[in-house]
């Protein structure tokens, strides 16, 4: 009798633990700075979030909060996610850096991943991709396609991340057309389709015949389509917003990284890291080329990409001159990550002043 009871007890215990295991999902939270939308920075993160749900059916449950302002609101939203049982939280905008660090202190058992920042803690990792590699290659494409030798670039904020992209793009353009100019317009916002479109039009007025941008909406692609010029997308493939205009796009791919981090949390091996990978790590990609790009250009770009992956070529290789014509990198040298991360000057060929 006693034995029977024990068995029943054991069985009950097993059932209970099995059912609690089935319910014990890993909740993963995402904080977005703009609406998820249909293209762009946030859309791209959201695609990776959805891929998590597919990759771990029944095990991972994801939640997102979109359009969260980078001021005092961010800390509340991140806290709310941590409080409601999310064990891994991705905060996907630079302005969430200090709020993420603050909340992480109060929730030492929750893991945080902050995109684009530089502050880490035991439970806060950072990640970003070497999108400048794709910027350089799209610059090469722009160089081949431009007839006016003027290409336009819409920047959000003059921070190193954006400046690095502009410089990489300019280097790519000028590797093909040494006298070409890159004109820059700052919009001081990450997401404002009306402003982005206005900026695109002002670049087009300045004779730019290929434009690209470091903002979140596909508005510049639409503006290019209407004006009958070319555009290069950013964040995600934006060809559906301007079939004729869209040449290719510099694209982030977070799917592999998110999957890996979730696996590590599930296995209990997650550790705070600073991840910065490009083509080689699969974090940076090029969108498919439009038929307007000649086959020889495509093969040249593909060849360069292979070299970058193999570590044989770096977009920021000497000799490199800044806007004033001073040598900043000697021939044969490759720029260090530290110098890349703190970039606050334009290279030769970029028009205008960096404020």
């Amino acid at each position: 009798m006693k034995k029977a009871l024990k068995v029943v007890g054991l069985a009950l215990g097993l059932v209970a633990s099995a059912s609690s295991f089935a319910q014990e999902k890993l909740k993963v939270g995402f904080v977005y700075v703009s609406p998820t939308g249909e293209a762009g920075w946030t859309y791209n993160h959201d695609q990776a979030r959805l891929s998590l749900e597919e990759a771990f059916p029944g095990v991972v449950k994801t939640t997102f909060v979109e359009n969260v302002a980078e001021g005092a609101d961010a800390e509340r939203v991140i806290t709310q996610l941590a409080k409601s049982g999310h064990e891994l939280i991705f905060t996907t905008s630079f302005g969430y850096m200090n709020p993420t660090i603050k909340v992480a202190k109060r929730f030492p058992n929750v893991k945080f991943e902050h995109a684009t920042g530089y502050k880490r803690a035991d439970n806060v990792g950072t990640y970003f991709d070497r999108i400048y590699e794709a910027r350089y290659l799209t610059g090469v494409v722009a160089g081949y396609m431009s007839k006016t030798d003027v290409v336009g670039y819409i920047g959000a904020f003059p921070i190193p991340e954006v400046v690095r992209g502009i410089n990489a793009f300019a280097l790519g353009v000028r590797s093909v057309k040494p006298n070409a100019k890159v004109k820059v317009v700052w919009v001081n916002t990450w997401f404002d389709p009306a402003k982005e479109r206005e900026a695109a039009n002002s670049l087009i007025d300045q004779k730019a015949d290929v434009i690209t941008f470091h903002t979140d909406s596909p508005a510049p692609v639409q503006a290019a389509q209407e004006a009958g010029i070319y555009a290069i997308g950013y964040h995600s493939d934006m060809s559906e917003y301007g079939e004729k205009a869209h040449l290719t796009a510099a694209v982030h791919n977070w799917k592999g990284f998110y999957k890996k981090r979730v696996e590590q949390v599930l296995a209990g091996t997650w550790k705070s890291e600073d991840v910065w990978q490009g083509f080689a790590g699969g974090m940076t990609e090029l969108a498919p080329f439009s038929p307007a790009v000649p086959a020889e250009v495509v093969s040249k770009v593909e060849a360069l990409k292979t070299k970058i992956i193999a570590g044989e070529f770096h977009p920021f290789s000497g000799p490199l001159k800044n806007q004033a014509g001073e040598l900043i990198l000697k021939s044969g040298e490759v720029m260090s990550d530290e110098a890349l991360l703190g970039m606050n000057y334009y290279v030769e060929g970029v028009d205008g002043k960096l404020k």
Partner: protein
Amino acid sequence: MLKIEARAQPSKHWAYFSPILAVVLTLITGAILFSSLGQNPVEALYIFFISPIEDWYGISELLVKCIPILLCAYGLSLCYRASVWNIGAEGQLLMGGLIGSAMALQFVHSDSIWAMPLTLLAGILGGAAWAGIAAFLKLKMNSNEILVTIMLNYIALNLLVWAVHGPLKDPQGFNFPESALFAQSTILPVLFEGTRLHLGLVFVLLALAIIWVFVSKTFIGFQIRVLGMDKAAAKMAGFSQNKLSALVLLVCGGLAGLAGASEVSGPIGQLVPSISPGYGYAAIIVAFLGRLHPLGITLAGLLMALIFMGGEMAQISLALPSAITGIFQGLILFYLLSSDVLIRYRIKIKLPPINSVKKRVYPTQTEAQ
């Protein structure tokens, strides 16, 4: 047939009932909206309006969110009572945050007890000075204060962006647009352990009491009300329109500046490009929702903050899009403005007389609806 008739006098009952009616209608529409989105409406409304303030932490966060909105709205109500159409609380708040930060950054390595008071004072002066520009242009150049204050908002935003990318940037910040973190001596003390609820709440309560007494009990408050209702009467009585307009603008600017300084030295703790997600604009809505009365404004501010937090909870718990927040804000404004019709008009149900069938009746404009 429904007929809308002008009342001889605005209804006192409906002045109080119309906001309640608006809230009820919003809830009903919200319930319909939620069920059409495939949610249980009761549960969804619970998550939207109750779950954000279920615990003490949630309430404290609601108050944190309210602080800048209310400080701006109290100041704006003063302006609007005097018929001075100040749209510039946002710019005044940003300037308060900017000038306050400039002061706070002088104390980065200091534990002086003056750090915090001077930061707040700098914020108040910054906001008041920004409003002072509008006051000067209105009084000396006869410029339209609506246009001037709107444009000053953009100038303030760009000044802030310039400062945070330039002189106030953290020298150790890898060139990112953020100031250094403020020293502990500058940070507003938290009132309750474990929350973010800071000293700003005390400023809100003080502002509430002072504005209330000022408007309803002092002679200057009386002059402001007269000026707002009838300029000619104010002139006849010998009240100085110029002085009063300047006064309300400066007070509002000072309060908005205090709000900005309290944000940077409170929950944010440094100067960043986005210190306000539009508090100064939300405050305009809150001021009118609250009927320009300090108590009404307080309730309206709490409601706006609750809708905002409810939107976040709806995203976290129900996976609804953030647009739901905007829809609720729009709904409540729409219903409030519609319900206000009942204050000045009454609806009469008139049955058509039986013999009127033979007559051809041409609907008048009011009947047509």
